[in-house]
């Protein structure tokens, strides 16, 4: 088989890189996002086909088989995954990408004759391994295979420091001598560092860490491009590294957080650790029937969904309740906080899945002035995004985060599992206000009971 001319190969790689840039650009706007993603996939296809025709490759049947296995496993999983489980699937895909970069670097080490190429090798090894292990821990947290709360133990900072120091030592030795054994040790140290990095991060901050690890994998891929002398890997990896960094900062800003605070807050015993303390201040709790009466005779109800709704898979029941109320003549809207749930946009996709018409999904800026005219604000499994502390309490972990102004509604009803504070771990004063009623229980069960009672009115 004759191979493609190197110039043609370079042009095809350039085309793929341009497709990737257009893909990221397209993902900036809801109108072009889906097309953008397809453009990216096309770019990847061009690149993968190009490599087969431009490089002298042995073992082609085996490689094709491996690609078939990888797609055969990943595509159906990605097709069938539940909405609520998407963040952890993204974490998983990110982790295996980092792992693949680390393995590529490891195998290229014996061919790396220049010291600067070995610098790129150790960088890819370390960052790829951190990304792999860190993503595995975020997966376990989001899948609730382990606690979603920050895991901190005495000596964690010391241990982390020791691991990083050992990693730097091993990396230097690999750069100087090219030892494969030390490279394997570096890989293990990278895995340990990844675990230690993510353990102290709490539930609500986990998506931001996925984004950070995503940027890490991008950088590892860029470095592996330097190792292989492949420009496409350099460009694509750098693009993801740079855009991922900006995106991580934007996501953190939307939650009123700093990236350093998220990663190291728990180290210092700071804000992200929060508290699990249960307050003993009096609250007004009520029965599903009472809530049904409140809702059933209201002119205007605004439902505020949060992660509790997603966890309980209550979106279909919430949609049914909205329908039942509307058939009684009540106007119902859903107020969507941009960071409600565990990933930005989580509530949009969740309610779209339950076929809530998109006209009823109101963005925060659009709905906030309308709480004043609402008879009832029904808060389902949300807490931090309606916590007035974000406006009033300087020094609170969520201070500065824009919130939904549910306090303006005539009545506020919270559907909550317990009095436990939200992910940010701070008490919500709104729950003790006179206009507030609480209904304790799993969001779906509570909604089902309220729905039954509304139908019986």
């Amino acid at each position, binding site marked *: 088989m004759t191979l493609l001319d190197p110039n043609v190969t370079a042009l095809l790689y350039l085309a793929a890189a341009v497709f990737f840039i257009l893909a990221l650009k397209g993902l900036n706007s809801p109108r072009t996002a889906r097309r953008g993603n397809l453009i*990216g996939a096309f770019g990847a296809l061009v690149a993968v086909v190009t490599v087969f025709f431009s490089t002298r490759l042995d073992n082609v049947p*085996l490689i094709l088989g491996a690609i078939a296995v990888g797609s055969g496993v990943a595509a159906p999983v990605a097709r069938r995954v539940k909405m609520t489980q998407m963040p952890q699937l993204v974490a998983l895909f990110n982790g295996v990408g980092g792992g693949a970069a680390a393995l590529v670097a*490891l*195998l290229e080490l014996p061919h790396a004759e220049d010291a600067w190429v070995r610098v790129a090798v150790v960088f890819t090894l370390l960052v790829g391994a951190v990304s792999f292990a860190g993503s595995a821990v975020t997966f376990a947290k989001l899948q609730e295979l382990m606690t979603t709360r920050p895991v901190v133990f005495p000596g964690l900072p010391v241990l982390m420091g020791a691991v990083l120091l050992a990693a730097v030592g091993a990396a230097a030795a690999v750069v100087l001598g090219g030892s494969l054994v030390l490279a394997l040790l570096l890989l293990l140290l990278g895995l340990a560092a990844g675990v230690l990095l993510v353990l102290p991060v709490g539930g609500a901050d986990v998506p931001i860490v996925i984004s950070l690890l995503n940027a890490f994998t991008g950088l590892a891929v860029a470095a592996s491009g330097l190792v292989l002398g492949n420009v496409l890997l350099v460009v694509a990896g750098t693009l*993801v590294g740079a855009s991922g960094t900006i995106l991580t900062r934007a996501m953190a800003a939307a939650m009123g957080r700093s990236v350093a605070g998220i990663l190291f807050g728990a180290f210092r015993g700071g804000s992200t650790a929060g508290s699990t303390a249960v307050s003993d201040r009096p609250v007004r709790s009520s029965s599903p029937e009472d809530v049904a009466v409140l809702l059933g005779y209201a002119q205007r109800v605004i439902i505020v969904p949060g992660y509790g709704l997603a966890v309980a898979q209550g979106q279909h029941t919430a949609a049914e309740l909205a329908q039942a109320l*509307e058939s009684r003549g009540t*106007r119902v809207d859903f107020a969507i906080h941009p960071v409600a749930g565990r990933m930005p946009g989580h509530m949009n996709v969740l309610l779209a899945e339950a076929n809530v018409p*998109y*006209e009823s999904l109101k963005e925060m800026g659009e709905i906030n002035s309308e709480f004043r005219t609402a008879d009832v604000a029904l808060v389902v499994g949300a807490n931090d995004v309606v916590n007035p502390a974000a406006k009033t309490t300087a020094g609170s972990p969520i201070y500065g985060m824009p919130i939904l102004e549910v306090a303006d509604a005539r009545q506020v009803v919270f559907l909550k599992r317990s009095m436990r504070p939200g992910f940010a771990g701070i008490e919500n004063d709104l729950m003790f206000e006179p206009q507030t009623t609480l209904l304790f229980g799993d969001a779906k069960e509570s909604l089902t009971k309220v729905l039954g009672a509304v139908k019986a009115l």
Partner: protein
Amino acid sequence: MDGISLLTITVLAVFVGFEVVSKVSSTLHTPLMSGANAIHGIILVGAIIVAGQATHPWVLAVALLAVVLATANLVGGFVVTDRMLEMFRGRKPGKPAPPGVTRGKTKESTEAKR
């Protein structure tokens, strides 16, 4: 390619990466992260090259593992992003409401406001 050219390309790519996502709305943060995640699955190209040049069985085995992992990242990443974005279809501005979801009450309350 020489080191300086690669460095030039890397630095320029950093700035393109910064620019291209600078003003994205928070609703699209997750799909954008997921799309970027799929793009770094292009490490598959590197894994294929290493596997194609492997002579030792152990090297080949590890390289094929890298191919499997990279393919999962690449293919799974684009598919899951598409799944997320499917949900945004109904949110195109200016699209008329689908039949059957118009609300009697909405109209009345709009009139009441006048």
